[in-house]
């Protein structure tokens, strides 16, 4: 990827591509199935398909931005049920037909007398580097990193992480996980270098690999873990969501259990830019999403992290917050959202941006509503309600 370094900003950034102009496809994963919402070109009207996998838990639904043979794009769904083991489903016709993975992510069988790990569910899916067609990564609960080289048909563990001698130290135990179990998530592939990977864990923190997963280093300097006696450990933080900017991959954003952070590589110390949020709102939340062309712009959706952690919109007044200056200041975006008695919970995968200009911003709630803005958060419209609990939303661009 060619990069330029402007006089105004010292951060290398690839030239911005032309903004997308086609319809947007929202890939909505819920506790009871998946739904596809397809927009008109103006993003004013939405047509729904679904439920797909009705009754199944769909943890993540991701459309490959890379095109394969005949221009087809692979759609992967990480599914389980409350009672059956996990699996992965794959479609190359935008969800009309599905093929089950013949070898879903699974840990190796433990030796005699050893305690083995078992994948409860695949939580996160990330397409591989543009130069590696067919490669995908998956993050599981409990924490595991898996790789497919055949578009999701079969998966193998990334031994450098899963079998690392430090694995138990890095990942902690069951008590360190989320209510749905400990998770590996936020798998980011550096668009300049297929070998450079970032992952995050709840709990465990952020880790970096520069050799395609063979070895890993913690990347948590400056990130608070206020639930531990050592407040700034090398690892053990609770990263909720980490995103690498696609055009400026030296810029990383993190929504953490303990605040909002930004890191500029090659630096290693995160800056708590959430300190610039209004004190009455705080900087606790689950998702962070990025402007596709401006590494200084990001959105978060604050949650109440006081007392027993209600994890709902502070004061019952839901709002997104946006920064356009790398976190130096934040602006409240609540137009169209309930002015009171709106107790939204938005999970870490349930917020997304599209590639249009102006950027569309979307979020889904655990109470089954999808809210959309086609003007970068200035005004919100509810485009769906009465859905099951929303776990994840991805916004994919379509050519027509």
């Amino acid at each position, binding site marked *: 990827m060619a990069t330029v370094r402007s006089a105004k900003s010292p951060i290398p950034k690839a030239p911005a591509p032309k903004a997308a102009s086609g319809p947007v496809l929202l890939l909505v994963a819920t506790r009871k199935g998946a739904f596809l919402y397809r927009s008109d070109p103006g993003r004013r009207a939405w047509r729904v398909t679904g439920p797909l996998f009705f009754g199944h838990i769909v943890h993540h639904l991701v459309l490959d931005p890379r095109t394969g043979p005949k221009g087809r794009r692979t759609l992967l769904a990480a599914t389980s*049920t*409350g*009672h*059956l*083991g996990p*699996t992965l489903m794959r479609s190359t016709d935008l969800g009309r037909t599905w093929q*089950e993975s*013949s070898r*879903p992510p*699974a*840990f*190796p*069988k*433990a030796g005699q007398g050893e305690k*083995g*790990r*078992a*994948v409860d569910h695949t939580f996160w899916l990330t397409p591989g580097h543009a130069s590696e067609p067919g490669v995908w990564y998956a993050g599981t609960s409990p924490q595991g990193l898996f790789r497919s080289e055949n578009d999701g048909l079969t998966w193998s563990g990334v031994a450098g992480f899963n079998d690392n001698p430090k694995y138990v130290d890095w990942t902690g135990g069951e008590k360190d996980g989320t209510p749905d179990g400990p998770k590996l998530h936020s798998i980011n592939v550096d668009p300049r270098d297929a070998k450079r990977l970032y992952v995050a864990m709840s709990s465990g923190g952020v880790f970096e690999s520069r050799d395609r997963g063979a070895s890993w280093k913690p990347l948590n300097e400056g990130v608070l873990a206020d639930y531990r006696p050592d407040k700034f450990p090398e690892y053990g933080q609770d990263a909720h969501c980490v995103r690498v900017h696609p055009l400026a991959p030296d810029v990383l954003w993190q929504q953490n259990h303990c605040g909002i952070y930004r890191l500029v590589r090659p630096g290693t110390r995160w800056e708590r830019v959430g300190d610039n949020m209004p004190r009455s709102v705080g900087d606790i939340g689950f998702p962070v999403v990025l402007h596709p062309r401006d590494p200084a712009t990001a959105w978060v959706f604050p949650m109440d992290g006081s007392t027993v952690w209600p994890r709902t919109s502070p004061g019952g007044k839901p709002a997104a917050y946006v920064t356009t200056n790398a976190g130096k200041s934040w602006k409240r975006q609540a137009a169209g959202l309930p002015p009171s008695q709106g107790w939204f919970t938005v999970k870490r995968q349930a917020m997304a941006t599209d590639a249009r200009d102006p950027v569309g911003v979307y979020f889904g709630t655990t109470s089954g509503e999808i809210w959309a803005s086609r003007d970068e958060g200035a005004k919100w419209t509810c485009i769906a309600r009465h859905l099951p609990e929303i776990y994840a939303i991805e916004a994919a661009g379509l050519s027509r």
Partner: protein
Amino acid sequence: MRVLIPTPLQSYTGHRAEVEAEGATLAGLLADLDRRHPGIRFRMIDEQDAIRRHIRIWVNGSEVKAIDVPLGPSDQVIIFQALSGG
């Protein structure tokens, strides 16, 4: 031998509630079942060969807790799913 399949797994058996599979042990039978109906085993048995939490397997009217139990040619295997929660 006859194997009874619960409703949530019948998408693997062509929506049949009763199928045939062979094996000298339950592990062997489950492997054969997976050869005939690919993917069905992992939904019931995890990668450590443990029966998943909400799956119950009965052999000739007795519940088994592990898959290394021997089977005879006339045995009947019933797979249940213990549904719970909302």
